[in-house]
């Protein structure tokens, strides 16, 4: 399994992005007033020191994803889900504040819970996890797009179940929902690419 496919790599990506941003942030302490804030702002305080609370949370998330990987590799999906639920229930840094990196970790963790629930064919629990995740990802980010993608796949599975049960109309409706969600996921990721590569996320 490669770096991009492995569950939990979104956390790794966040840590990588933070490291890069911290590097850029260190070098930009004397940036002109009014210039765009560094993306590292959330983990750097006013003096440019790394926010250890956020870094500790990211580290905890990474460890829990790793533990869930082991459980999943062993085929123990309930334990993997329990581990991920520990992450979404963990003490968050700067309670009451909205820290983008923390929200991304939570959205990503809920997406993984949804995927694990889907894998053990509990579609209702999977759908609930997606809803929880979307609450942490209101904007057009990779994490929102990924959650919509997972929700689309859940509806795809639901359509198959209805079809197998001979419920044609229900299957048709679930299929239509799946297509709409997957289409939305594609559009969100397209915006993410546009923003990352400099067109401001047009379209």
């Amino acid at each position, binding site marked *: 399994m*490669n770096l*991009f496919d492995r569950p939990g790599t979104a956390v790794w990506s966040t840590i990588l992005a933070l490291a890069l941003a911290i590097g850029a942030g260190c070098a930009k302490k004397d940036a002109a007033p009014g210039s765009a804030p560094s993306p590292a702002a959330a983990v750097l305080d006013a003096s440019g020191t790394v926010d250890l609370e956020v870094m500790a949370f990211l580290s905890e998330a990474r460890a829990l994803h790793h533990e869930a990987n082991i459980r999943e590799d062993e085929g123990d999906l309930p334990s993997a889900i329990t581990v991920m639920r520990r992450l979404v229930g963990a003490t968050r840094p700067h309670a009451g504040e909205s820290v983008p990196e923390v929200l991304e970790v939570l959205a990503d963790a809920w997406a993984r819970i949804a995927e694990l629930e889907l894998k053990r064919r509990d579609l209702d629990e999977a759908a609930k996890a997606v809803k929880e995740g979307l609450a942490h990802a209101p904007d057009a980010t990779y994490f929102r797009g990924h959650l919509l*993608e997972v929700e689309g796949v859940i509806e795809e599975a639901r359509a198959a179940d209805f079809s197998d049960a001979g419920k044609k109309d229900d299957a048709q409706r679930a299929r239509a929902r799946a297509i709409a969600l997957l289409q939305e996921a594609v559009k969100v990721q397209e915006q993410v690419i546009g923003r*990352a*590569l400099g067109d401001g996320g047009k379209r």
Partner: protein
Amino acid sequence: MKLDRCVCAVGLVAIVTAACGGAAKSASEPASPATSAPPGYAPLPAPGGAAGTGTGAAPSREATLSVARGDLESAQRELDVAAGDCMAACRALGAMDRATGHLCGLVQESDERTRCEEAKNRVRGARDKVRTTCGTCPGGVSVDRNAPVPTER
């Protein structure tokens, strides 16, 4: 893979250290106002031709090196940020590709086929964009416009 992650982790430390260390160094080393190059060193043209113009004096080696060091650090920072952007773009492209695969696997009616084609076109457009800026993507995410959507793995 674990090894990839270890290598990446080492790289991260190096990147952060280099960026922070470099910045601190340049901040603590103000450019020298010296006006002549030492023997054996021809004065180098300043970037943009700005330094030294109007005064008739050539920048010192120290000043030239300081400017070069600043340019190098600036380029390194841009490279670091670009690497992060490409990683984000590749990850999103992989997700687009997967979602389109699921979407197109579900279509039955002509209206739905149109939506599938529209999604595929978006993926092709995104591949062009990512290829132009980033070259390639890791993890088997295709940036070839003509490759099947979704990418065959």
